[in-house]
């Protein structure tokens, strides 16, 4: 039961991270390897705002989310857009270029974080009294983080499926070639999709900072987990990413409690391998 509750809480954060990544890859077609670094940047931002400015994390998140959107907007405009133009509609070229460019970005962001915050593990203590959930004592900060992920995740699904903007985003994700025919500015929408994904990464990072210890070197692991969830759920599939995120959180908590916390990444990879071998289109994806 403990595993179940803790796993679901952890899975909520993972699902949120994966949603951001699937937006960036599904709509903007950018494979962002620096995604985990953006997440960490937001996590450090939250710690900084909490420790020096004394802002309560819940207020800080309200500031961090738009800051993430702005960062994503700038990144897309100045870094990704030239690559999109150069690729000239060839998806393979853009894929290789974006992988390489964001791989470079990963080292820049990681370097900046190491200089600013050092390589030590960081954590804050905020609302860490236990709350009884179905007979399991869960820290309040975890529950709040879970709540944030639920709100952001469900909000995104509602937005994508029942709003005009969501319809446009989905149109670009489905057929970027035909979207201009119905008067959609693909460049603008891609930028919005990328920025929205970055904002989700920032919210995810901020909620991680509320309950987990992290260090400037953890970016690769976050990116990796988000990527694996996206693939498990099927690329661009929001509901699939949510479900896969919860599944990964559960498996990871189970492995950490029954076997060894050092084996969680191995478990993640094992799932990845299994998905690759049996259902490369994703557990919830359609066969193409």
């Amino acid at each position, binding site marked *: 039961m403990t595993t179940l509750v803790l796993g679901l809480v952890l899975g909520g954060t993972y699902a949120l991270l994966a949603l951001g990544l699937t937006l960036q890859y599904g709509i903007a077609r950018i494979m962002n390897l620096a995604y985990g670094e953006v997440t960490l940047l937001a996590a450090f931002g939250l710690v900084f705002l909490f420790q020096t400015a004394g802002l309560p994390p819940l207020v800080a998140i309200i500031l961090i989310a738009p800051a993430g959107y702005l960062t994503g907007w700038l990144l897309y405009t100045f870094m990704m857009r030239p690559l999109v133009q150069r690729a000239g509609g060839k998806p393979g070229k853009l*894929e290789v270029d974006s992988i*390489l460019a964001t791989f470079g970005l990963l*080292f820049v962001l990681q370097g900046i974080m*190491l200089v600013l915050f050092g390589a030590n593990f960081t954590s804050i203590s905020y609302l860490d009294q236990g709350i009884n959930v179905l007979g399991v004592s869960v820290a309040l900060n975890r529950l709040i983080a879970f709540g944030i992920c639920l709100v952001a995740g469900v909000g995104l699904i509602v937005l994508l499926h029942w709003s005009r903007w969501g319809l446009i985003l989905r149109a670009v994700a489905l057929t970027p070639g035909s979207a201009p025919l119905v008067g959609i500015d693909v460049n603008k929408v891609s930028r919005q999709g990328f920025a929205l994904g970055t904002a989700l990464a920032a919210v995810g990072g901020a909620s991680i900072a509320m309950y987990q210890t992290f260090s400037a070197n953890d970016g690769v*692991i976050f*990116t990796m987990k988000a990527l694996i969830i996206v693939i498990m759920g099927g690329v661009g599939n929001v509901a699939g990413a949510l479900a896969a995120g919860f599944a990964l959180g559960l498996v990871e908590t189970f492995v950490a409690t029954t076997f060894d916390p050092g*084996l969680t990444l191995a478990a993640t990879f094992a799932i990845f391998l299994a998905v690759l071998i049996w259902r490369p289109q994703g557990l919830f994806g359609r066969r193409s």
Partner: protein
Amino acid sequence: MIRLAIALLGLVALAVVPLFVSEYELGLMIGMATYVALASAWALFSGQTNYISLATVAFYGTGAYTVAVLNESLPYPAVILCAALIGAGMALLVGLSTLRLSGIYFVIFTFGLAELVRQLITWYEVSITGTLGRYIFLDLTARDIYWQMLALAAIAIGLTAWTNRTRLGLALRAIGDDEVVAAHSGIHLARTKLIAFTLSATLITLVGAVASPRWVYVEPLIVFNPTVSFLTVIMALLGGANRLWGPLVGAVPLFLLFEWLSINFPDTYPIFLGMLFIAVVFVLPNGVLAGLDDLRARFGRRGK
């Protein structure tokens, strides 16, 4: 034929250099040879096919760690052979599970592979053998290591030159150009990619194995340093990953730059390197050699 002779002469010249240089300069030469070997081996697969492997250090570290584990129980040649076999086995495993699918899965898998291997070894050492960190005591001088590394670099470049002339090289280039077309021309995609990836990864593992005695003390955090993967890719790209001499042209200056940066800016050099990487992707997407060719073509046209 003349090209081959020049290359061989260069190799001989490089082989006698250590007889005349200081210990520090020899260290630099070893570093350069290491990265030339790494970048050339990387380009052997990734440069031709556009399948970006981000797992250089996963293989490099595995090679180094194999030597660390086995150096007391087996003679040196046997240790090296074991490292090569382990590297090849790992490459087959990764290749078999990802190379049948589209390139993105391969990239993602290799992206996390180094971290996975590092965590697995750490977990194994901590919870099963109860130690973290091992010592390598081998009766090898810096010169011996340099000569071995030079040989590996020569093998990597020679192997690339040789595959370029065979059906395998042609098939790899076809895959890099257009995979669908390649499949329709009767190329067995998965098998071709698997062979090249295994060759490349085995060489990288050997580089790690040969380089390892320089450390004396080895632990997972030291040998699985992500900077190695990063440097290898940027070096190959800078020179031109699909050119025979491209990785060498990129590796030598970048290695020296890296040495200089890490001595003068020990804290901030990853930022500089990252920016340099982005700059290379933006300004010289096909590498310096291709850029030179473009320039030559432009001036040639103007001359006429």
